[in-house]
């Protein structure tokens, strides 16, 4: 076995120097090392999406199939880093208000998948929402409410920014 190496990883704005072995995944570092257990561990093969986090470009990536050693120097946002100053993000608020949760295991992954969409496309249509969430599906049958919550949050964000989304008054 090759020795551990130190990686410099920023998680939710906090810098960490962490010793990792070659076979450790980003998911293991986040959950077992940093004890940020909002990010879940599911299929560990890139199909279920519950391990989704955002990378430095704001894109949704799968922490279970990302090697920790490859995250040296990178900056990651997990679901714990989405709220600001103790206030929930409009996405989180919309999930609450619309009851877009059943068992809740997929929720952090869905929030981070939707964040990945908002970070890269601030004014997405329903097609773009469906596509962004297709890699992280609620298997409890609650996926429709999730889609509604994301669409609702986008409207809320647009309304507070004083702009309009796709023809709908904000």
């Amino acid at each position, binding site marked *: 076995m090759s020795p551990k190496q130190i990686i410099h990883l920023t998680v939710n704005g906090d810098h960490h120097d962490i010793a990792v072995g070659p*076979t450790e995944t980003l998911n293991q570092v986040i959950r077992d090392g940093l004890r940020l257990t909002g990010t879940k561990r599911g299929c560990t093969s890139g199909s279920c999406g519950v391990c989704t986090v955002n990378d430095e470009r704001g894109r949704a990536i799968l922490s279970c199939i990302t*090697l920790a050693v490859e995250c040296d120097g990178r900056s990651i946002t997990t679901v714990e880093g989405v709220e600001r100053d103790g206030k929930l993000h409009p996405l989180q608020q919309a999930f609450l208000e619309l009851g877009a949760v059943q068992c809740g295991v997929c929720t952090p992954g869905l929030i981070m998948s939707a964040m990945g969409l908002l970070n890269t496309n601030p004014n997405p249509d329903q097609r773009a929402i469906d596509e962004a969430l297709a890699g992280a599906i609620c298997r409890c049958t609650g996926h429709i409410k999730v889609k509604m919550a994301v669409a609702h949050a986008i409207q809320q964000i647009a309304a507070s920014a004083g702009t309009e989304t796709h023809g709908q008054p904000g």
Partner: protein
Amino acid sequence: MHLPPFEYVRPDSLGHVLTLLGELRGQASVLAGGTDLLASMGQRLMKPKFLIGIRWLPELQGVQAMADGGLRIAAGTTLTDLEHDPLLAERFPTLKKAINAVASRHVRNMATLGGNLALPTRCWYTNQTEGWRDARSGCFKTDTQACHVLATSDHCVATSSADSVPALIAHGASVTLASVRGERTVPLAEFYREDGANPTVLAPDELILAIHVPACTDRTAFLKVTPREGIDFGLGTIAVAVTGSNRRVARARIIVNALGSHPMPLREAETIIREQGLNEASIEAAAAVARSDLGEITNLWTPAGYKRRLVRVLLKRALEDVRKQKWGHASFLQVGEEMRHVP
């Protein structure tokens, strides 16, 4: 699933990658996006002793416009970066559509084009956990001369399912492979072999460097049929590129994938379209021969009968799509009227 033990190597240059691949011949895998490799390693389908990380190398990133209107796509470019590239949207909309069809946004944010070209074939016996596979003996892909999907087969029949591949072949793309022995460029159509266990001509010491897509003046189409719209592997994919007008077709390329162990050209259908042009009758005739164009196919994932019916539907839809498109000298120019070919 924890990953099996391996050593991680971070090379400092492209030359270093090639040296490592040469020295560690057969014991090392290149790690790009990792979306398939790490999942397969979790299932103990692959147990490389070394992983060579290439995401750090700027030489393997980016899309370059060539003077002739074509593209050079560095193999480590992520599929999302490709989708967002204005050159692709402008000049190669069919390629963009095929890349968008791969897996999910999450996977495309990580996965690379080179990785999609080298995507291993899949079957319902081998692509399982080690415990599942242990219930029977090995197979052509692991360590035994046997196939549990098709007992009478003398080779691996696992399915080739990369979505970008048929579209790239239809565009006449080629791929540059590099090793310490030098570089070679092969047409993508010749990159694949009719053997699920060893599906490409990539040597153990070679790296996929770049994909070249020539300028496209053809009318093109891509279709993928899946159980669900998102994240599924295709039950069948097709890409079509037609040179010329509906009346006079100079060349037709029709490539299907996910129906066998390698991407397949439908040669007889291509000939019919080239000789008869694009019209209702010729499309009907091409669709009628498509089923026999497939050659021998298996009941893997879906029954062979379903595949033969599916290819007919795919071919008709793709050719109808192309037939309705306007034809001009360059597909990325707005051409108001179909141009008449003057002999």
